[in-house]
């Protein structure tokens, strides 16, 4: 589907994207681009000559890196960038105050946003995790950013549009957010963060195809689009053939990419092909023993596989790498959970959450722990938090259903099972749960129908 020529061009675009994303202080996007680029077959790279921007990146224009800024603006921007790297977000915002050149505006507002997120986290830091906790605070910076960007919506560049999209997402203005993010990725394809933000807007199969249709109209042939759709298919638990449809043509070209590998591993994991997933994860670990990302998923997998020894080794190794990473805490918690030390497990999940409040996987798993401990109130609270962060987390919805069933509220449970089933219509477990719930409510016809759906899925 993609020719050598396409891949060659794509390589150049990626090399350029590294410079541009880094210029905008979008480190996640930069990292993603480097991970893709890392997997590019060697014959695309001209390794016998020294790498120069002139010879390798003819696509790069000077305005990509140094657009028309005045000398003052340029100097301010350099200063702001350094401070941004040191996470002094308030300081960045203050230094760039009043500047409206697109790049400066973006960095200023982005820093404002991050500062707001930081303050939000800090404000909720001391509160104990549990059902007594008060509601999470809002990011105070959102309204200011919204009011600044909204009047000039139509003249924003790709990066400001991305930021505007984030703000709209937070304001739950989904249509507008989608429009802004679509426009952003259309203007500049290689900002992976914008794609990820766009992805959070889709949670059902229908939405996936709505989005795909729109993307096919806007971006006819784009490797990034395919990578995105593959990822989205994984995230919203579409049948694995959808994922492969997008990934197959790319996999050949990017075999070495760590990102692609972990995507494949996740795909097997989601499709309940645990053995294949485990093999791939092992491979990833061998190649990148110090990469903590996705290892939490691996630990989940090991937990489900019941391979306590491997889990123990993984936990030890991760502690060696960095014990104060949320992923590490989550892995350790999983280990304790597997050995039946639920209290320890709860402790480590809480630690993970202290390090990162919006770690929805940890919230869900903590909820599972509380279910084990028969503390349904706490479990419900945890699940609700997971959903508040990521409403596509079917495990949290399912967990909520279970918890409500435990406290004998079948009507509530039914609603939550419905939500879980909506997210994962091809999972027989969901239909079974739904059927059981209808049974409790003496809706036998409906219960039967659900069981039939489950049976049909099982036979496939």
């Amino acid at each position: 589907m993609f020719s050598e020529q396409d891949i060659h061009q794509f390589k150049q675009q990626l090399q350029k994207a590294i410079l541009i994303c880094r210029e905008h202080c979008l480190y996640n996007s930069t990292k993603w681009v480097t991970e893709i680029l890392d997997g590019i077959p060697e014959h695309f790279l001209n390794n016998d000559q020294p790498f120069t921007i002139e010879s390798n990146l003819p696509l790069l224009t000077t305005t990509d890196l140094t657009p028309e800024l005045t000398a003052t603006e340029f100097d301010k921007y350099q200063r702001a960038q350094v401070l941004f790297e040191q996470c002094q977000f308030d300081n960045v915002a203050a230094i760039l105050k009043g500047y409206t050149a697109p790049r400066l505006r973006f960095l200023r507002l982005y820093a404002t946003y991050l500062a707001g997120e930081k303050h939000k986290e800090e404000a909720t830091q001391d509160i104990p995790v549990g059902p007594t906790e008060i509601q999470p605070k809002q990011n105070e910076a959102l309204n200011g950013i919204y009011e600044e960007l909204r009047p000039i919506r139509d003249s924003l560049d790709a990066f400001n549009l991305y930021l505007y999209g984030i703000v709209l997402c937070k304001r739950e203005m989904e249509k507008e957010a989608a429009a802004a993010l679509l426009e952003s990725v259309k203007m500049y394809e290689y900002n992976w963060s914008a794609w990820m933000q766009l992805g959070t807007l889709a949670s059902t199969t229908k939405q996936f195809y709505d989005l795909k249709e729109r993307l096919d109209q806007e971006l006819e042939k784009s490797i990034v689009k395919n990578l995105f759709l593959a990822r989205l298919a994984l995230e919203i638990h579409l049948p694995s053939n959808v994922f492969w449809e997008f990934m197959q043509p790319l996999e050949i070209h990017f075999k070495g990419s760590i990102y692609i590998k972990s995507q494949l591993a996740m795909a097997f994991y989601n499709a309940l092909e645990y053995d294949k997933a485990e093999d791939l994860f092992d491979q990833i670990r061998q190649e990148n023993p110090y990469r903590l990302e996705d290892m939490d998923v691996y630990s989940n997998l090991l937990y489900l596989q019941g391979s306590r020894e491997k889990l123990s080794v993984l936990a030890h190794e991760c502690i060696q790498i960095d014990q104060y990473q949320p992923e590490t805490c989550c892995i350790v918690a999983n280990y304790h959970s597997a050995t039946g030390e639920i209290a320890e497990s709860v402790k480590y999940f809480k630690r993970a959450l202290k390090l990162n409040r919006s770690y929805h996987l940890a919230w869900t798993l903590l909820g599972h722990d509380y279910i084990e401990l028969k503390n349904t109130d706490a479990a419900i609270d945890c699940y609700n938090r997971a959903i508040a962060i990521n409403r596509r987390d079917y495990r949290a919805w399912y967990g909520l259903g279970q918890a409500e069933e435990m406290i004998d509220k079948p009507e509530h449970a039914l609603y939550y099972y419905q939500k879980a089933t909506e997210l994962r219509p091809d999972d027989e477990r969901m239909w079974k749960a739904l059927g059981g719930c209808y049974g409790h409510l003496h809706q036998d016809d409906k219960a039967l129908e659900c069981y039939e759906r489950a049976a049909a899925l099982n036979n496939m």
Partner: protein
Amino acid sequence: MQPRSRSHGSPLRGGDSFELSSPTSRIAASSPDGEGNLSFLREISASPIARHHNNSGMHTILSDPPEDSPIRLNSFTARARHDLSLLTDGQSSFTNLTNRLASPVRMPRGLLQEVSYRADYSCEDRLRIIRHDAAQQHLNKAATFFAEKLTAISDDTNDVYFLAQAYYQSQEYERALDLLNKKKTLNKSVQCRYLAGLCAIGLENWHDALDYLGPDNPFADKNAHLLMYDDSRRGNRVVTDITKLDGASDGLIKLESMMCYARGNAYLQLKDIDKAKSCFKEALRVDVKCYDALDALIQYNMLEEKIEWEFIMTLPYDEHCGSDSDLFRSLYMLQLKRYSHTADIQLAQKKAEEDHCLKKSLDVMHSTARTLLAECKYEECLDICQEIRKQDALYTKSIPTYITCLYELKMKDELYTLAQELVDRLNGKAVTWHAVGMYYLYIKKYAEARRYFSQATSIDQYFEDSWLGYGHTFAAEKDHDPAISAYITCSKLIPGSHLPYMYIGVQYMEQNMLDAGYEYLKRSAGKCNSDPFLLNEIAVYHYQTKQYPLALENLRNALKLAKDRQSPRSNLWEKLWANFGHVYRRMRKYDRALKCFRLALDKNPQNSDVHGAIGLIYHIQGRLGKALIEYNKALRDPKSDNTIRELIEKALQSNPSAPIMNIEEPDNIFSLRNGTDILENYVNEELAALESETANIADRLEEQPSSHSALSNNDLEGESILQYDEGDLSPKEDPRPKLSSKDWL
């Protein structure tokens, strides 16, 4: 992040000690109306002589000064002094001296010497010149010394007057009064009477002051023209050209007007607000230039919005100010309230800034700040207030505006710093304690806030902001009765403000005493009918009493007023759209209601009341999945009440009988082409509906059946849900009353 101790402790308490030690407080205590007195002083010293002729304006006869008396000379030097005082006003005495020496324009001293060298002057004349100079240069002892000698020599009323004035300027009010009485000047000279009145005011003997000044304007029954052209007033029988005798041509402020002002002041202190008001108004009508009277009218907010406009616009500027009439009109217009006539005020602002080069004037800048505040543009307003403070940190007029901005922008630390600084520097001013009160209001320490607000009102009982703040502290604690009584006190003291009545109305409505509330809202509207916030409250009343078309009409009127004048950041919009939504919801125009709710959410996505109401609409329409999503959003607000939980319960109970996957497929959210789907035009739609009420009725008839069919699907359920509807989900006015109050604080 702030150090904890700041926000949690009550650091300002330490400030109390300042109150005791500060010298300013002593001054304020000795002259309860410090400002007024100072302005008296200023005026007297500016033109001490020009009006000591005006004696026979009263019914009494004062011996006319001899033709060739030093008084004429004096009036000449006085004019020179007058110029001097204008030129060097505000500069230090040292620079005055150097300036005077350096620039020929500023050399009245040389002029004086020149005059005094004239050989044909007697010793008395020379003493008079020295006396005037001493008084002018604040050498009080010298002035007293020479004045006393002169009275001993001549026993002339003029000389007695100047001695009394010298006493007055040394703040020896009683001595001055004694002198004026003993020398029996009061029946001979109006000027002396005026000074006696000022002395009585200085002594806080308000009744005495009224005795001296007369309970009413004694000149009022006389034909004003006669008075104005009365030859003898000028003490010069030779002049016959009437226009030259006119106050306008002389350019000074008329004594009659000043007396009216002093009288008003005395009445104000006696709490006779109506009398005071009419005195101040009279002062201005007699002489537009008597700014003190205008300042009093504005500062004590004595005039209702409409009356104020009419009064200020119809003052005889041309007659009194001649070629400067435009300047005066523009400047005075800037003092107006900011509810209506925005374009006119804007024009006046422009004129003052550009035609009259007053861009840098504090008052003109303050006027811009007031306009911005009324439009809820706090950031911009803050900038101007800070600019004003940079120029003059003790300019108290703009401080309440500044405080409001800081409060609204949640700048707690700056508010604290400001309050601290004011306590240090302006210990005796009401606005200082108002700032402290606002700080405590902000950190929600209501008892402390109350204490400081009442301290502010005890310093200046006509300080509206603090009265309202005092009421808000009770309102914030849902303590309705004391809140209402605080607002009532405020409404009595400050007749020009519609806000106390509005807040009383809101308080009654919160207690579900709708009719009592409406009564006060109506009264408030009687005082000012162009405040969109007020119209919004009235709409809430109509909503509560199920008079939906009336509610709509009020909301639309509010929208019309707010459309161009409220900044998009104003918190009015959220309330307004939420209330529109509720009214349409009750009228079962669900599509419109949803549109309005969306506009409300655009202003505040976290508004749980709106989320609940949207959920209710979906619920009634049988879209349980969507309803539950919205209910859950409403539930995110920790303050959300049980109604939402009950509604969720209801929805969940009916869920099992609905189809298995009763979750609606969401709309295609990826279909939007251009970014702005926000219903900007909806404002115009509503306004058009206001224009054509008939179309509105047709509209209603047209939509009625469709909403019925939507309801018939689940008729019974719909009805039972609507019962909730009547209860707690009604459009609540801001539960934090201080927020709605902010615009005016």
